[in-house]
């Protein structure tokens, strides 16, 4: 039996009068990578922000790692207690498009701070974990640098290490390479591919169609706040059923 890590049903979200997410339902299995693609303004970030609790949903239900975050009660999303929300918050990590590293902390401290303050790990434990992750990111020589001294690709790898240090069970990425020069994009995608091989459960919002097609287990195309098409990435890219998806993919081929 496979564990369902994300179970979203009829998730809805509006900002004022604009319905940004209309009826989002999908599931994700443990160890799978889901790519979310779609045009600008389709609600991809908003969905990720609901999954990581940076926004609250208006309707629907959501289970993460088998536990409810909010439930559908008469069409309204009713959230669990603060304690349970926090528990789930600690099981999810988010990598931002523009990194959001802490500029006043060294690379090492960026990775140890939350381990120590939130998980109450000892200094030694947090630092050895950070060093291991930096090695994995090929950045061990940057431990004492400050974020301003790093390239965009290096910054993004530090921010991935910062998220991984918390041992999340699901890792979310919101366009992790969109702020990077093309030649730096590859080094970040390589890291994400490596995590996929280790069976890290991940959701990646991306405009990198090669990555979405080649490195994910599932893909999902959003437009106008709804999931227009979802399924196996090869199927989705080679045999798009929906006209909207076909048109969207064409904009990348031209």
């Amino acid at each position, binding site marked *: 039996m496979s564990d369902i890590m994300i179970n979203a049903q009829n998730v809805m979200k509006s900002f004022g009068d604009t319905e940004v997410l209309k009826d989002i339902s999908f599931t994700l299995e443990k160890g799978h990578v889901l790519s979310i693609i779609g045009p600008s303004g389709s609600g991809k970030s908003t969905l990720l922000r609901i999954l990581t609790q940076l926004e609250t949903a208006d309707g629907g239900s959501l289970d993460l790692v088998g536990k409810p975050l909010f439930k559908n009660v008469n069409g309204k999303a009713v959230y669990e207690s603060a304690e349970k929300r*926090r528990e789930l918050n600690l099981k999810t990590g988010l990598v*931002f498009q523009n990194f959001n590293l802490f*500029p*006043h902390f060294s690379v090492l401290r960026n990775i140890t701070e*939350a381990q120590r303050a939130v998980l109450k790990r000892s200094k030694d434990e947090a630092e050895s974990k950070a060093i291991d992750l930096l090695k994995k990111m090929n950045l061990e020589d940057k431990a004492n640098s400050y974020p301003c001294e790093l390239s965009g690709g290096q910054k993004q790898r530090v921010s991935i290490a910062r*998220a991984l240090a918390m041992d999340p069970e699901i890792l979310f990425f919101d366009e992790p390479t969109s702020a990077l020069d093309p030649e730096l994009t590859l080094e970040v995608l390589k890291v994400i591919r490596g995590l996929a091989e280790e069976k890290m459960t991940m959701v990646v919002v991306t405009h990198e169609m090669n990555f979405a097609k080649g490195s994910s287990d599932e893909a999902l195309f959003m437009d106008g706040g709804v999931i227009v098409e979802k399924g196996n990435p090869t199927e989705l890219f080679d045999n798009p059923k929906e006209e909207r998806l076909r048109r969207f993919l064409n904009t990348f081929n031209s």
Partner: protein
Amino acid sequence: MGNLILQLFKGLNFSVRIFFLTLLFSLPFGFVVAKGRMSKIAPVRWFTDLYIQIMRGTPLILQLLFFYFAPFYIFHASYDRFFAVILAYVLNYSAYFAEIYRSGLQSMDKGQYEASQVLGFTKAYTFFHVILPQVFKKILPSVGNEVVTLVKDTSLASTLGIAELFRVAQTSSSRVFSTTPIFIAGVFYFIMNYVVAKFFDIVERKLDYYE
């Protein structure tokens, strides 16, 4: 001459006390005002805004006179001059510091809050360990400018007859028919501000390691 210098040092003592007492209270109180200025409750926001506008829109010398004489005329009660002086300076400088804090806080990237939240930091932890250090660095030059101004502004306390440096220099000057005391007082102010500027310089350089 020795006597003159001694007198001036006594005046300097008052000036320095005004200076430090003002900073002691207005630096933290400015933060409370900034919070009020950014409050979600509209009347709180309006009230703090009005307060800031008045403090910044009227001369400090006028505020000094007001805080000393208003209680006297309204309640027929008078209180210690020195207290009135400190009150006026603190309320005035808090308004300036509040605006500096506010612009510093509002210039913070919201991504810093979001990254903190996703990592599980509490609101208080985020404020003290992520936001405050960065805001501190950002506003340091503006705070430095205000502090330099404060050194010079302490001379306005002479209006209420406080025997601070400027007043002592002025009375000595007219007593001995010479501008020497005024000149020496000028040198004192200059040295104080030199120290203040150097101090801020050093702190700024200490924080130069990032961004």
